[in-house]
Structures are given as structure tokens and as C-alpha cells.
């Protein structure tokens, strides 16, 4: 018998998932949406068949972590962790439905610390297996969709309807869709504006390196302003602008200052990655292009921009994820978005309402990161390693 598991990461994650499910509450139970729930242990929440299936799948993960990590074993780990994740979600939904039966309508069954921790461990285990398998873009996409589609289907069939988060969603259904669109629109407008200003700025700095210090210094300074402060600071100039030019359709609060603030934060990564992408091209290649009679414009479009593409995509990835997260703060100046649920929730001491704003923000950021990660992988594949 070997002394250590072959895959220590998987072994520890499986142990952590077991421990958190045992010692932290799997679900929480509260008489209404405003008080903090008291934890319900796993065995109080789950029926015997589900519990047995969970023990079986976890056991399988532990065994797999001791085997030689061949492609088959890694696929099995991926599959087992995914199955356990479905089981976790399914069990939580089922338990909530069971516990709500006959209870007062104000009663709330929430997801406990144990659920979140175990779900986190399982997702990490899947990412670990996917990385060890060196999955390409198609493989990653397949894993992601085979994880998300069944969860979406389960939600559609109403399996999660009795969980407090979904109860909160049901109450906010119309506002939720509107704020989701609003959130995306804010991010899209800000990132588009940042690209429109930041890319030319980055190109300028790449051509005239002596101004790099001044430009990046200024943009760096902008980054250090706390986000809440920047949103607040922009109210005054925008109010003044709105008063001076009434026909503009802007105000001191609302979308305009929010988009400008988000854009200012995005400027540094956009400009810096543009400059770095241009600088990444081998000078010998640029010289060869010049010697063949490329015009400066042709060098930019046909050589420098395509060669810098991986760096540009990496920058866009940072910018999108950062803007999606920061846009949550934009609700503070009345710009809307998922942040409005967060701030309402804070105001009402309603944790589930905060989560209703926070979780979609995180998922949106992860989705943006995932898609651009795949785009970068596809681009890199064509070029030199």
C-alpha cells in the first residue's frame, strides 16, 4: 500500500467536502426572511437513499485519489465530482421542499455553509481534473455545458423552488430580469468606451515610450481611488454638466457617472495590455516587415495587432471581470444592476436578497472569464509555443 494519495489535491478536497458537510450546517432554517437561520445538519436534511448515494460518490472520489492518475481515472474523478455536485443541488432542493411542507409560508430554508463549502470543493476538484487532463477548448466547453444544462433543467422543473434564494427570486422576478440587462448594459458601455480610449492610448505609448511613465502613472492613480469614492466624486461634475447642458439626458446620478467611473477603472488594463501586446512582437519581425515594404498601417494591422492578440485578450479578460464586479457598486449612485439587490438586501438585513445580487454577479464574471479564456486558448493554438 502506498503511503500518500497519488492526487493529493483531490484527496484533500474530498476530505474537506466531507468535513464541512458533517460539521457545518448543510441547510439553514429560519421562521422568516429577516432573521439568521439555525443550521440543519446533513442527516437532518437528507433522506437515507440520497445520503447513501452521497457517501458512495465521496468514497469513489477518495479511492480515485489513491489510484495512478491515468486519463481514465481523471475522467472518472471528473464524472464522480460532477455527479456529487448534482446530488448536492438536488438534495438541497428536495430537502427544502420536504421541510416547507406544512410549514408557515414565511418560513425560509436556506443553503448552509456546509453546502457552499462542499460545492466549492467539488468545483475545485473538477477544475483540478480538467487541468490534469489538459482539456482543450472543446473539452472545457463540453464539461461546462454538461454541468450547467442539467442544473438549469433542474431549476426549470422547480426542484429548487422552495429554497429561500429562489423564493426571493420569485418575489423579484421582473426586477431581476431588468437589472440583469441593466448590469450587462453598464458593463458593455463602460468596456466599449474604455477600449475606444484605451487602445489608442496604448498604441500611442507603444510608439512614444518616453510618455509611458506619465500616462501609466495617471491611470495608476485612478486605480487607487476606492470605487465607492469615485462613484461619489463623479456626482458633482455630472450634476454641473446636467445643469449646464439640459438637453443631454444625463444627471448627477444614474448610468452616466457609473459608466464613466467603470471606464476609468478599465483604462489602465486596456492601455497597458495594448502597449504590452505591441511590444511583445519580435523587433526582427517588424524590421522584416518594414524591409518588405509594409506601410506603418499595414505593420500595425497585419503584424503587430495579430501577434499581440493573446495579450489583448488577456487584458480584455481582466477588464471584463473587473467591470462586472465593480458594476455592482454602481447601484449606489442609482445606476441599477445586480448591485441594487445587494444594497436593498443590506438595507433590509435580508441575506438572501444580498445573495440574489451577489451570486449572478459572480457567475457573470466567471462566464466572461471562461469564454475569453477559451478564446485565448484558440488563438494561442495557432501560433508558436
Amino acid at each position, binding site marked *: 500500500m502506498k503511503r500518500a494519495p497519488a492526487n493529493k489535491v483531490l484527496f484533500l478536497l474530498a476530505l474537506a467536502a466531507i468535513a464541512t458537510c458533517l460539521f457545518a450546517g448543510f441547510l439553514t432554517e429560519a421562521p422568516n426572511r429577516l432573521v439568521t437561520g439555525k443550521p440543519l445538519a446533513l442527516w437532518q436534511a437528507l433522506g437515507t437513499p440520497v445520503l447513501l448515494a452521497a457517501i458512495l460518490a465521496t468514497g469513489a472520489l477518495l479511492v480515485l485519489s489513491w489510484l495512478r492518475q491515468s486519463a481514465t481515472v481523471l475522467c472518472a474523478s471528473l464524472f464522480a465530482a460532477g455527479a456529487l455536485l448534482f446530488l448536492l443541488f438536488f438534495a438541497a432542493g428536495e430537502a427544502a421542499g420536504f421541510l416547507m411542507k406544512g410549514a408557515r409560508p414565511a418560513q425560509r430554508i436556506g443553503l448552509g455553509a456546509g453546502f457552499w463549502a462542499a460545492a466549492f470543493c467539488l468545483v475545485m476538484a473538477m477544475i483540478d481534473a480538467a487541468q490534469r487532463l489538459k482539456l482543450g477548448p472543446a473539452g472545457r466547453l463540453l464539461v461546462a455545458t454538461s454541468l450547467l444544462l442539467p442544473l438549469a433543467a433542474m431549476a426549470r422543473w422547480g426542484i429548487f423552488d422552495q429554497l429561500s434564494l429562489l423564493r426571493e427570486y420569485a418575489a423579484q422576478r421582473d426586477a431581476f430580469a431588468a437589472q440583469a440587462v441593466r448590469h450587462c448594459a453598464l458593463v458593455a458601455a463602460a468596456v466599449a468606451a474604455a477600449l475606444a480610449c484605451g487602445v489608442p492610448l496604448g498604441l500611442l505609448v507603444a510608439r512614444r515610450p518616453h510618455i509611458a511613465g506619465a500616462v501609466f502613472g495617471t491611470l495608476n492613480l485612478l486605480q487607487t481611488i476606492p470605487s465607492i469614492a469615485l462613484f461619489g466624486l463623479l456626482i458633482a461634475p455630472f450634476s454641473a454638466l446636467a445643469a449646464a447642458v439640459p438637453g443631454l439626458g444625463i444627471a448627477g446620478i444614474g448610468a452616466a457617472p457609473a459608466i464613466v467611473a467603470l471606464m476609468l477603472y478599465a483604462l489602465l488594463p486596456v492601455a497597458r495590455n495594448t502597449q504590452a501586446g505591441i511590444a511583445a512582437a*519580435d523587433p526582427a519581425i517588424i524590421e522584416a516587415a518594414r524591409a518588405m515594404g509594409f506601410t506603418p498601417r499595414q505593420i500595425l494591422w497585419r503584424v503587430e495587432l495579430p501577434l499581440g492578440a493573446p495579450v489583448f485578450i488577456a487584458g480584455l479578460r481582466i477588464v471584463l471581470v473587473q467591470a462586472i464586479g465593480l458594476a455592482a457598486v454602481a447601484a449606489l449612485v442609482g445606476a441599477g444592476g445586480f448591485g441594487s439587490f445587494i444594497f436593498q438586501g443590506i438595507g433590509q438585513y435580508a441575506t438572501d436578497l444580498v445573495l440574489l445580487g451577489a451570486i449572478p454577479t459572480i457567475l457573470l464574471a466567471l462566464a466572461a472569464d471562461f469564454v475569453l479564456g477559451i478564446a485565448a486558448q484558440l488563438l494561442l493554438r495557432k501560433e508558436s509555443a
Partner: protein
Amino acid sequence: MIELEGVSRSYGDRRVVEDLSFTVEDGAFCAIVGPSGSGKSTSLRMINRLIEPSAGTIRIAGEDIATLGLTRLRRRIGYVIQSGGLFPHWTVEDNIATVPRLLRWDEARVAERVRALLELVRLGHETRRKYPHELSGGQQQRVGVARALAADPEILLMDEPFGALDPLTRQALRAELARIQEATRKTILFVTHDIDEALLLADRIAILRDGRLLQYATPQEILTRPASAFVREFVGGAALGLKLLAQRRVRDHLHPGAAPAGEPVAQDAPMSEALSEMVLRGAEFLPVRDAGGRIAGSVALADMLR
């Protein structure tokens, strides 16, 4: 014909090239040689105006290049650099087709040209779909040469094209370049710090030191009448005689008829190689074979002095 007349280039107070004048005839193979920092690359790059001269005139076919359009000038001149400088995001075909496409040739003509050039540099037709990183250093440099020749320029400028290759690949590519020069009759200007490479390939050698031209002559003349002690030392010093011998072919000293036994030397081999074989074998005569591999006659130790 390329004419340089009083060409200088300085950066601030530092003079990199000073009062350079020489003429390269059409179809000539001219090597610019010198130690590091002698201004040889700068001289080359002034010809396609990657660097502008501070003073002097450069003429191509009688026309002052300063008066020609930059882009048009450069498309008349092929340029090959040490690392190949291939575009890593383009296939071999796209790389070779760069200038023809800039000149808006139709695609059928471009494809035909790519096929012919791959053949000229002896790369398989299937290579055209590959990316540069899938090729060896030697193959990349062959593509570099093919790309430079794509639009059939009058002139080929080469800046240490074989500098980054291993000795065997370098040797093979030198032979290929000699063959390509034979086949295409381009005017070639070739920068190298390796005097043996220059002696092997060039029919004219310009020796530079500290930005000044020390001697411009045929290999034979440089070996037999070096212009200064520095040139003499630079081209060979103690080995000068052997280098002179390397300039001569066995073919020119062949005695037809009966030959001694043993492994024959090729009639196209340099005399230095025959001498080396004689020393190794302790023989005063060697059999010589012709291009077909048949024994053509013999060569004698006494021929080394004639």
C-alpha cells in the same frame, strides 16, 4: 548595379559608417565583412533605407534611392536576416506570398510562384501549410530566402543569414545559396563576420573596420595582396596560404589517365581538401573522381605550389 558614393552615417558624435564608396555590378555576389561594430549591418540597411545615410548618395541602376518611393524601393529589394524574421502567425505559403500579395498579384499567380520558390529552396510542397515554429532553423531560413525572392527583386540583401545555424546546416545552406545565385543571377549583398563564408561565396569582398572601407577586391586579390596588416591578419594570418589553396579546385590541377588506388577526391573539391587528404594518408598522389563518380585522373602534392 548598386553604387555607394561617400556614404556616412553617424549617431550624434559617433560615426558608424564613414565615407563609404564602392560599386556592385549586376549579378555580382558581394560580401561585406568585418569585426563586430565595423558598420557592416548599417551599410547594408542603408541600401533599403531601413537606415537613412547622414551623407552621401546611393544609386540603384543609376537612380538615387533617396528620390525613389520608400515602399516601391523596398519591394524591389529582397531582405534576409539572421533569425529569418518570418511572421509566426502565418503559414509558410502566406509568408512567401507576402510581397506578391502586397503587389496585388492574382491568387493563381501567387500559388504558382510559391510552388516554384519552394522547389528552388528545396522544401517539399507540403511545407506550405506549416507554421514557422514547426520548421527547423535551417528550413526557416530557406523560407526566409524564398520570401525575399518572391517578387523577383533585382537585389538580395542578406544580414548574417546563416549566423544562428549549426555548422552542418550552415554549410548546406551556403551550398544552396551558391546554387540559387547561379540559377537566378541576382545581385547579392551579403553581410558576415565569417571571412571563410565570404571567401567561399563571394566574387567581391568589402572589408570594413570602424566604419571605414579597408579593401574592396576579389577573394584572390585580398588573399594575395592584402591592403594592410590588419586585412592580412583578419583574412587568415598564418593560415593565409591554406585559404588561398581553398580558392582553387582540384579540377584545375587534374592529370587525366592512370590514378593510384584508394578513396578518390571529388574534382569540384577545393585543393585544401586534397592537401588534407594527402597529409592524412601520407600520399603524394590522390585519385580524382568526376561528377558521375568515375575515376577521372589524379592530383599531385607538387600541384599545391602551382
